[in-house]
């Protein structure tokens, strides 16, 4: 029983690192623009399909797809930014419609190009087991996704605090007029937040392909998960994203272990609602990009 619980928590912890990687791009863009990119999950999925194509068509390790996937996904993210930027009125609201539509277009394009088939990696290295302390089991790819997720968030945190582009993103997220008075160009900060969100989505997509299976409709589910974690975190807080992602993932894993895996999403939704009732501004509420 104890072993089972520990294993469930361990599995949840590992997927929490991956969830955080998926969610943080959404939080970053929300910070600078107060825009929720509803095509974010589709961008992650796009990267996963690039990884699939690299493996199946070129016969290469899917991780070698990173540079191409990054070029594709960052371009798509910047294109989304420029379209969002052209919204003249009520950007916060109208961008929801715009990005939701772009998500549908992306899903259907993937469907057209790659069909509705389910794909997963055929590189065996990824699903070999790793046992820690004789009891905790995972696939190599799950451990890799966790490490990549945590390192990426750490890197992002460093970048936001120690580079001028990063600082401008924090300043714009905190107080737009004050940021302008520091000589910051808000448009540039917004563009960087979309570009970096694209890079993070690419990493997430490649991890998605190596740990799990992909097919066109799952992009939408990823967006929802990212959105829930971002709200749970308290819109725009990066440590909050990490904590929120672990919370959701561990609850899901415990539910799947002790009840049914079909109930796990329901359980995480339940926690989400409870947190919002108790702490309306999220776990790390009222803080912006930290």
């Amino acid at each position, binding site marked *: 029983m104890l072993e089972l619980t520990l294993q469930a928590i361990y599995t949840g912890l590992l997927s929490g690192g991956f969830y955080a990687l998926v969610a943080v791009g959404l939080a970053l863009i929300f910070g600078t623009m107060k825009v929720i990119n509803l095509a974010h999950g589709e961008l992650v999925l796009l990267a996963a399909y690039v990884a699939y194509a690299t493996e199946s068509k070129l016969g290469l390790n899917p991780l070698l797809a990173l540079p191409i996937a990054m070029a594709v996904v960052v371009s798509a993210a910047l294109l989304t930014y420029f379209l969002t930027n052209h919204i003249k009125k009520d950007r916060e609201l109208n961008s929801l419609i715009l990005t939701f539509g772009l998500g549908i277009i992306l899903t259907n394009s993937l469907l057209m190009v790659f069909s509705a088939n389910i794909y997963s990696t055929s590189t065996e290295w990824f699903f070999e087991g790793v046992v820690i302390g004789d009891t905790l089991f995972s696939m190599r790819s799950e451990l890799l996704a966790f490490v990549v997720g945590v390192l990426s968030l750490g890197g992002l945190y460093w970048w936001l605090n120690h580079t001028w582009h990063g600082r401008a993103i924090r*300043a714009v997220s905190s107080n737009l*007029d004050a940021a302008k*008075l520091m*000589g910051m160009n808000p448009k540039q900060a917004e563009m960087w937040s979309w570009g970096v969100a694209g890079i993070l989505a690419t990493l997430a997509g490649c991890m998605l392909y190596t740990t799990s299976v992909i097919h066109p409709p799952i992009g939408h589910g990823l967006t929802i998960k990212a959105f829930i974690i971002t709200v749970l975190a308290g819109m725009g807080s990066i440590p909050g994203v990490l904590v929120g992602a672990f919370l959701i993932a561990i609850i899901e894993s415990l539910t799947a272990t002790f009840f049914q895996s079909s109930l796990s999403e329901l359980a995480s939704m339940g926690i989400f609602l409870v947190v919002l009732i108790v702490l309306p501004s999220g776990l790390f509420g009222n803080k912006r990009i930290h």
Partner: protein
Amino acid sequence: MLEVMNLSAGYGAMEVFWDLSLKFEGGKTTTIVGPNGAGKSTLLKTIMGLITPMSGDVLLRNESCLNAETWQRINEGLVLIPEGRLLFGDLSVEENLIMGAYPKNSRKSLENNKENVFNLFPRLKERRNQISSTLSGGEAQMLAIGRGLMEEPKICLIDEPSLGLSPVMTHEIFSIFRELKEDKLTIVLVEQNTNQALKIADHVYLMQAGRVALSEKRENIDLKKLEDFYFARN
């Protein structure tokens, strides 16, 4: 150096001032006094590009800067130390100061300037890790001034710096402004504290209800008369 010509601006459809013309000479200190709601802060925000004017022009070194974004004006050395708390409320005191070093020219002397600010305001040094939204009014004012100095202004617009400061602190910051003046900075100072403000001024404007009611060289101004003027139209 800096000139405002026939400027009109406001919020939405409401005009705060009309056809306003003022001139700020290079290397000199110009003080703008006037009652609450006269439009002084609105004028400074319009000069910075935070508010788009309805008509008229703002000349920076004899060239219109209306097409320049706020951040481009900052890169020209135009800096506003805003009234009240236009701080990064969720960032610490020290982080707020670091943000002040964002303009390209001031980045390399970040550490130096930060030490200088901490020497000027030891209180900020004590509270360097405190989240700035929890500062007292006076401390927040010190932080806004310190952050503005981090930007290494050439033309410095200062909006009611003494607001919320004790008489001792007010005296201190005015001695800082006097030093800036000796360094040949162009200063535009909006102040309710006419006594202090007149002491360092070269030129004085009195603004009332969106208009310039008086424009005089400092030496031609009698504080008593100015106050009569001030109260007569209030």
